[in-house]
């Protein structure tokens, strides 16, 4: 790679030469991927099939086949419960984040004074959302909608609901602001793709007599469908990787627990990974299907 290409290098086909130089630039990533992602991933999978004991002298493995997986899925009541809770919370949060960030982006795309100030406010949480900060704020009740959760009527209403409905609703009430706080990057992405929509289309539509309402549904929304897909996937990944995520915390806790161990937590990690991929696939298919319906 260094210096001028050797005279001998001139003899080889240009396309091969280009490919080699390209690999030269990307090589570092390929090596890094093998060392820091692929190898640990495979190693974790090996852990998940074993009972792993770490001692001062070294690590001992005892092959147990799929026992860790069956324990996670069929014996451990907490894990499955947390996993279901995670899926529900993600599916509840996702549409809220998508709709909220789209609305805020539509507002901020208008022309008015102090736009910059509002942009600054709505992007602020991106800077400060770390696990311990969120944990402190939630513990002090600062993330629920002000004054709603404490009212007796709400508590009475919640008590009436069946538990499969109560959990999501309760989550919504206690963490509403938190959910909104995960919209910062999403607002920016929507905003930038709104600014890319060709203005002349709106003018043409207005001349044809379309109202602002109609042009929103017929022009703006369809042109945002790809962006929505990207944002949805990004949002799911961010929510799933967040260190305050209950499943993540449980797996982390089990890694060091006496009754858990590395083998068991590795198996849970893979189950969680699989659920995450299925969630992504589900959302991808739903949004892709809707996008095609709109354009088709």
């Amino acid at each position, binding site marked *: *790679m260094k210096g*001028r290409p050797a005279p001998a290098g001139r003899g080889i086909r240009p396309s091969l030469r*280009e*490919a*080699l*130089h*390209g*690999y*030269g*630039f*990307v090589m*570092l*990533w390929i*090596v*890094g*991927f093998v*060392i*820091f*992602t692929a190898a*640990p991933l495979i*190693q*974790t999978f090996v*852990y998940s099939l074993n009972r792993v004991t770490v001692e001062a002298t070294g690590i001992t493995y005892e092959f147990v086949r799929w026992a860790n997986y069956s324990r996670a899925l069929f014996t451990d009541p907490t894990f499955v419960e947390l996993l279901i809770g995670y899926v529900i919370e993600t599916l509840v949060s996702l549409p809220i984040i998508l709709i909220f960030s789209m609305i805020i982006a539509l507002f901020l795309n*208008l022309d*008015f004074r102090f736009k910059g100030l*509002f942009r*600054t*406010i*709505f*992007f*602020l949480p991106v*800077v*400060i959302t*770390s*696990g*311990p*900060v969120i944990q*402190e704020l939630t513990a*002090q009740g*600062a993330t629920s909608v*002000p004054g709603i959760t404490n009212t007796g009527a709400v508590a009475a209403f919640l008590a009436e609901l069946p538990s499969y409905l109560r959990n999501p609703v309760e989550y919504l009430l206690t963490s509403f602001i938190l959910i*909104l*706080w995960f919209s910062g990057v999403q607002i*920016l*992405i929507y*905003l*930038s793709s709104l*600014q890319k929509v060709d203005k002349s289309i709106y003018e043409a539509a207005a001349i044809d007599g379309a109202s602002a309402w109609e042009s929103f549904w017929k022009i703006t929304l369809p042109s945002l469908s790809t*962006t929505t897909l*990207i944002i949805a996937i990004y949002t799911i*990944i961010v929510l799933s990787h967040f*260190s305050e995520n209950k499943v*993540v915390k449980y797996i*982390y806790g089990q*890694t060091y627990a006496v009754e858990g161990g*590395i083998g068991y*937590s590795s198996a849970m990690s893979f189950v*969680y*990974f699989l659920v*995450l991929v299925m969630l992504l696939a589900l959302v991808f298919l739903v949004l892709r299907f809707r996008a095609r319906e709109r354009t088709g």
Partner: protein
Amino acid sequence: MRQMIRDHWRGFLFGTRTSYGLIFTTALYLLLIAIGFVYLYPLLFMFVTSLKSPADLLNPMVQWVPTELYMGNYVKAFRVLDYPKTFWSSVLISVVPSVIQAAVCSVIGYGLARYRFPGKGLIFALILATFIIPAQNTVIPQMLTYRRLGLLGHIAALILPASAGQGFNSAIFILIFYQTFLSLPKVLEEAARLDGASDLEIFVRIGLPAAVPAFVISIIFSTVWYWNETYLTVIFLEGGLQSLPMQLSKFVQAYENLYPPGVVNIFDRLNEAVKLSGTFLNILPLLVMYFILQKWFVESVERSGITGE
């Protein structure tokens, strides 16, 4: 004349083709202020509570305006967090990996954007995969390796993955650089090549200057994300460097070491005001950075063209 005045008023209130009108504008501002308040509520709550003295905390009459500016909570939180020391280790573990990560991602993004080679699609798929794979699926073997090498608790445990494009959210930064270099005109590169410049020289002389905004964005975002990251830092740095968020997550324990609950008087017991002071001290450096660099944060997406795909 009267018709004109009426039209004027109607335009003023309900908007014309060129302006929104008073009603719409007022509604817009009210809505944005209301949402903005809800949005900032946790921060306001935190700030106000952190200024309350123990007497104010117990007094149900005191909601939003403390009776005095009580700085005692901050003094305690400052000591409990061991602020100067944890602050500098936080700076260290967020800035150093970020700069290295940005440099490496620029090289990778350049290679992906400017060269045609077989297997590129596969590499993109794998880059996306590194973004999706949860940390807990890869950290344990890494942690055990670092422990064997004696790197646990050392910043190298964060630098090593970052220097190979496998740091925290590296995939996003590779895509940012990819987009930046993709939009660079090919003509410049060809001209330089005719002048006999090597590929590396072209990257340094033509590629890098065009990527300055991408560098700024990558470094500041990555700094923020590394600063706030606790999952990786707790696993890789435990027993060594202590970042601010790490210290905050052990706040209760650290507080009771300094102010043993049986010994101190009732006003020095741990209360939510002290905890929230600690939380505020934790985010203060980021807030300062945000307000200084807000243009870069807020306009980052447009500048980096991340939605270009």
